């Protein structure tokens, strides 16, 4: 447990791995969240099914953008990861329980 924590702290301090991980999180993690979000947000109330798709798409790209900005703006890698994990969990839960 302790070594795990140390290992994480070392990542946090590493001048190249830290931004490298953020880039990976932003591109791949952000896409993953967007993928889930696009699926989940079609559940929003809207006039027709195609409207639901359109709305979900617009919101999802904005969400992707905000996710990327957050990942680079926030202080620590952990907070960056949480920025992905929380919406992913919400969307995943929504998809799992609401459909």
């Amino acid at each position, binding site marked *: 447990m302790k070594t795990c924590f140390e290992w994480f702290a070392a990542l946090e301090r590493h001048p190249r791995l830290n931004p490298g991980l953020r880039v990976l999180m932003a591109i791949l993690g952000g896409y993953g969240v967007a993928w889930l979000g696009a*699926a989940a947000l079609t559940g929003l109330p809207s006039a027709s099914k195609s409207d639901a798709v359109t709305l979900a798409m617009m919101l999802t790209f904005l969400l992707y953008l905000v996710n990327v900005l957050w990942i680079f703006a926030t202080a620590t890698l952990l907070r960056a990861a949480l920025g992905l994990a929380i919406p992913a969990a919400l969307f995943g839960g929504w998809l799992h329980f609401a459909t």
Partner: protein
Amino acid sequence: MRFDQARSMRLSMSWLHTWSGLVLGWLLFAIFVTGTLSFFRNEITFWMQPELHRVKTNGLALSRAQEILEQEAADSPMWIITLPGARNPTLGLAWRADAPRPVAKTTHSRRGGEARGENYGNRHEGGEGRPQFEKNNASASAAGNTTSSRPGMKRLTLDPATGEALTARETAGGDFLYRFHFELYGLEPGWGRWIVGIATMFMLVAIVSGVIVHRNIFKDFFTFRTGKGKRSWLDAHNASSVFSLPFHLIITFSGLLLLGNLLLPSAVQSAFQGDSRAYMQSVRGGNTPVTPPSGERAPLTDLSALLAFTEQVWNGQPIGSITVNHPGDRRATVELRAANMDSLMGGRGAARILRFDGVSGQTLDMPAVAPPSIVQSVWNIQVMLHRGFFASPVPRWLLFLAGVGGSLMIATGLVMWSIARAKAREKLSFGHRLVDVLNVAGIAGLLIAIGAHFWANRLIPADLAHRGDWEIKVFFIAWSASCIHALLRKRKTAWIEQLVCAGALIAALPILNALTGGLSLPGSVEQGRWLLAGFDICALAIGGGLLFAAHKVMLHTPKFRVTKAASAIDTESKLSFPDFAQLQTEEPA
């Protein structure tokens, strides 16, 4: 700046802005430039077919067109006649040559959200009046030697005044540039679109992080300090960005939306259980099947009379096209469609349509189309802006100018990356040299390639087989040559030589046009053919601008000298490179 240390929001955003803009910046520049030209793709294609430049514009030989269609396409299930208009002075005929499709699937040409037809990865057939992609293969004769650019459709170009069939060269036309801007070339369409989609997302991140970095967007717009090295580049970058910031945001975001179903298939999967066909049906909603043909023959009514009637009803609003369904059948219908859209929010369906019985010539009721929902309107506005779906020239020119501004924004940003880091560095690092080479080849080289594409259009023999493909090959050969040239030459000489080359190629286009059978610039101005004059004047302006830029680069002498002290500082601050936020706060010397 280091991510493992405390840092301000602006510094983080500045880092993000710098790198998200740089990594795919050259691709984005190419997308922006070719996309900007696409606002005038019809005009460009017309310029590239000098055989059509001298068509007479007095009179409209619609009866002759009807005769030709009745001879050539009596059994066709659909004709489309494109009337001469502000963007194309010829009379275009097109007809479906294949067997009629099953009736249940045939739908009205009026489509609420048709603008989305293409965002699916696979093109769908049947967008009436939509400019064709592929080659503009207009070479044909009324004797039946017609060619088709799309399986199932045959087309013929007529002189609008005489109704004579015109033979124009095959050309890749403006459509090559248009298609390049969203699916590149030579790749599977899906791959090209994915790459463009990824680049677009980078662009969105770069724009928004760039806005966050700025403190004084408004003030920056009015600030321009010339001759101050990187400070001036920053001012130029700021001004070109702020000048049309809403355009950049909308064009980028709507670009993502247009590719949305390809990039994020999960939305359609979730809402339609993966049934993309059901989705397309739903998007086009409100369609009613065309009345099936009766099988009984009956002569088609005189189209000229319908045209005259519609002109009167619409008070001279220009008419774009005439669609005839089941010509020659007792249940034929004729639809006249306005050239301009009534509203930006309505999507493609917003063009006015008047519908007639094809035999009696009586007007028919149009099926009521529900007004678009709010979500649909938001979508439509963005997509209509992106695609320039409104015919009046002023907004089109504004879009074009904004596109030029966007191209300048990307170019100045890329150059600034290099300049901000050029300080006192005796030997360039590999990365820096790479950026410099890509800057020359990606910015000046792309413009050379576009210039060469237009030259190839005029110099390749007009009757050569597959000459459209050759035009495209010349584009890529010229671009490759500029890459090699940029690798071999020093940065400054490479910039000068390539800018001069691009400027000369482009500025000389009006001369080339006059010498190779096109209508010359004085002639087109005198006759008021602004379609052609516009191309030539733009070429002069852009070419002149590039030559001026080359001149400025030639005069430029770097202000700093490499001193030992400066190199020492440079190595010390290797990780905290001079960055955007610092530049923004620096006071001008």
